[in-house]
């Protein structure tokens, strides 16, 4: 079985800092894979390489056989990769619905002129996309805030809207960069449930960066550990937890010492 996402020997440096070095990784279709590691381990950089925000110096990344490595971010998105960001990337002055509709943009086929007309294909397309967006609103249980400007929402809800914006793309692969960061206990539980439900309902493959080990161990099928840009471990949550190298990277001492 070939993997949905194949990462081969990817390296990326910023000046003298080697952020990611020679990382190889296969992500299977339909799995939830978590990337963990101490601060500065290169987790976000790796995610940025997949979504083509950065282009790696060496190595290749393939999605379903398509090479992503040199493509522009919009092209990668069109191939089915969506992501959320550590520090929420939404249009704060726009409503929740409008932000989600923007997430559908990549699927809109009408040109500027056609879209400006109220009747005809422009309207039909708008209605069709709104239907998809309403499904997502229903799924994420955010009906009550549909018309609220995103900037006025509590942080945890903004995170949920951002997940919605990514889902609006109907991605094959969803990259989540700390979806639970800065949220309270209840919001964390909600988000974990939504991540599982997305995976379950739509079969979306999910690559997740998260610091909350409880959540990571609970919801991931596999875990990959990065330290100083290198992959030091990979396996099921239980295997990774028992790995002495991982314990060392996290605690800075020998296991058991």
């Amino acid at each position, binding site marked *: 079985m070939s993997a949905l996402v194949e990462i081969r020997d990817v390296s990326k440096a910023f000046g003298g800092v080697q952020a990611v070095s020679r990382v190889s990784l296969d992500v299977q279709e339909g799995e939830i894979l978590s990337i963990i590691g101490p601060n500065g381990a290169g987790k976000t950089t790796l995610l940025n390489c997949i979504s083509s925000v950065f282009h790696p110096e060496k190595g290749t990344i393939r999605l379903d056989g398509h090479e992503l490595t040199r493509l522009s971010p919009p092209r990668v998105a069109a191939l089915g990769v969506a992501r959320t960001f550590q520090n929420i990337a939404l249009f704060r002055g726009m409503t929740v619905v409008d932000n989600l509709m923007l997430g559908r943009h990549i699927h809109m086929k009408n040109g500027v002129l056609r879209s400006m007309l109220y009747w005809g294909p422009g309207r039909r397309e708008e209605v069709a996309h*709104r*239907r998809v967006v*309403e*499904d997502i*609103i*229903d*799924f994420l*249980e955010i*009906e*009550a805030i*549909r018309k609220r400007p995103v900037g006025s929402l509590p942080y945890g809800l903004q995170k949920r809207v951002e997940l919605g914006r990514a889902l609006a793309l109907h991605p094959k692969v969803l990259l989540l960069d700390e979806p639970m960061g800065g949220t309270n*206990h*209840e919001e964390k*539980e909600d988000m974990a*449930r939504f991540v*599982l*439900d997305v995976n*379950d*309902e739509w079969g979306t493959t999910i690559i997740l960066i998260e610091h909350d080990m409880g959540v990571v161990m609970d919801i991931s099928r596999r875990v990959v550990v990065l330290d100083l840009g290198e992959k030091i471990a990979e396996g099921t949550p239980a295997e990774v937890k028992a790995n002495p190298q991982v314990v060392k990277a996290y605690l800075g001492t020998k296991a058991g010492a």
Partner: protein
Amino acid sequence: MPAMTLPQFLLKNAREHPGASALREKEKGIWQEWSWADYLAHVRAIALGLVSLGFRRDDKLALLSDNRPQVYAAMVAAQAVGGVPVPVYQDSIAREIQYVIDHADAKVVFTEDQEQVDKILDLKGSLKKVERVIYEDPKGLRHYRDPLLMSLEELEERGRKLDAERPGLFEELVGATRPEDVALFCYTSGTTGVPKGAMISHSNLVSAIEGILQIEHYDRTDQMLAYLPPAWIGDTFWSLAGSLIVGCTVNCPERPETVLENLREIGPHFLVAPPRIWENLVSTVQVKMADASWVKRYLYRWLMPAGEESARRTMEKQPLSLRLRLLRALGEFLVFAPLRDHLGFGRTRYAYTGGAPLGPEVFLFFRAIGINLKQVYGQTEAGGVSCVQRDGDIKLGTVGKPFPNTEVRLTETGEVISRSPCVFVGYYKNPEATAATIRDGWLHSGDAALFDQDGHLVVIDRAKDVTALANGTKFAPQYIENKLKFSAYIKEAVVVGQDRPYVGAMINIDMENVGKWAERRQIAYTTYTDLAQKREVYDLIAQEVERVNRDLPEGTRIHKYVLLHKELDPDDEEVTRTRKVRRGFVAKKYADIIDALYSKAPAVGVTSLITYQDGRQATVRTELAIRQVGEARELAAV
């Protein structure tokens, strides 16, 4: 009205008005509609689906769900095969759910979604009598493999199959239902003891609706909003029985959080709400007004008193002066009509408050802006509602007069007793309680009341709650509490003072409104407890307490109060699911705080055990300040 059962009314509506709208629910941002023919089709499928599972006459179907068209359909479906629906409060904690489902001997449980399914599966070990758990929304349940589970879709599919095999079976079953059959188990929350399952027959419900129809005019084209827990008799009364008998449309909100928005979209012709909702609406208006532009604030402050004055004079049947009439007309144009429209009461003919007494200030507020708010009174055991204030004969503080088909009397001790075709069958598996409640055909309510000179019933309090101070001064705690709760800053209050020298109050601040108030004044706070213990917040509440005291007789004024560190919560058994204070329990639980209200101590320490969601427990210690009313001013004078 013909002696029919609710499923028979459904057949009649589907026959006479198949295309008219029966139920609506907002889904995916759009109001989705079921006609009476659709309603019948779902009931038929669910009923026969239940039959295919072995659900028979007298079997019980428990329901755990928010207001959804499917819940009402499932309730009628259970009735159609001669079974009994048992709605359970959907936000109940596990122990309560377990008690009700087990006590009712429910064979099948209808749940809304994963959340409710999880609750039932967790309790599986102690719910031996449950044979099936039906779920409506499959989201998140894909990998559940429990043999108890079945989707509503599958159940309906089985029902349709059985219908094709045995056409006419459904009509036969519905034809066999009798008006005296038990139509509903309604577990009364009860401010004391364990819940009791009141058995209510079809003819009880039909008679109760008949009673209100003798007074009020409901139309087939009327709209109503079903947003209160289906386990509350008030919801069954209007959303199930009322809708089926009258033929009007029931609208279910999109989510519990969108009720106010949906209320505005629907613009119901009649609506019932417990005092809590009316109090919240007043708070919403007050808070929005505080944030409004100065023109709006000015108009509101100028014209609102005129509105209240005219409403008061109209109720007292006194003439309105020319000045009042003019101000009222101006107010109607500039403030009242827009406000009504904004709240969603643009075409409301009747608005009811029931379940618990409503403070007179709140009542007057709605009458002032031209909403026909009326007090209803009743009890679960009498089919829900048995007294209502008549149009043109509204009086503050009364609950109106009984329905024409209901006889209401007072015992020598002042307890309300009633006799009518609505009086329930009895409590399930509890003949002692039944015998104590129905004596010689009279239903004993446990409420203390009196009749005023115009024949209006005035309910004072629960009979056992009316109490006296040590010096013998009588007072009704609930009356004072309702006055406190009129304040936008007070969410809940418990008034104490039995056999004590003076009246004291424990108060829950309204986190949202006090929080906004604090933000405007740049008062930093972290948690509920922290906010409640701010000196400024105590000062704010002091003004509210003094306002209440001005209207109270000298002897029963609040002398000392304390702001509690947590909200009273049904999960902690401090209030019932319908938000009635469980006095006995609260008095015991907060004994230290109550003692401190009668000591010279300036503060009292409380230790509370907090259970986190992951099961860890921690004890938190807080000091709660005790404030004497007028204290701040006395200090200032020194």
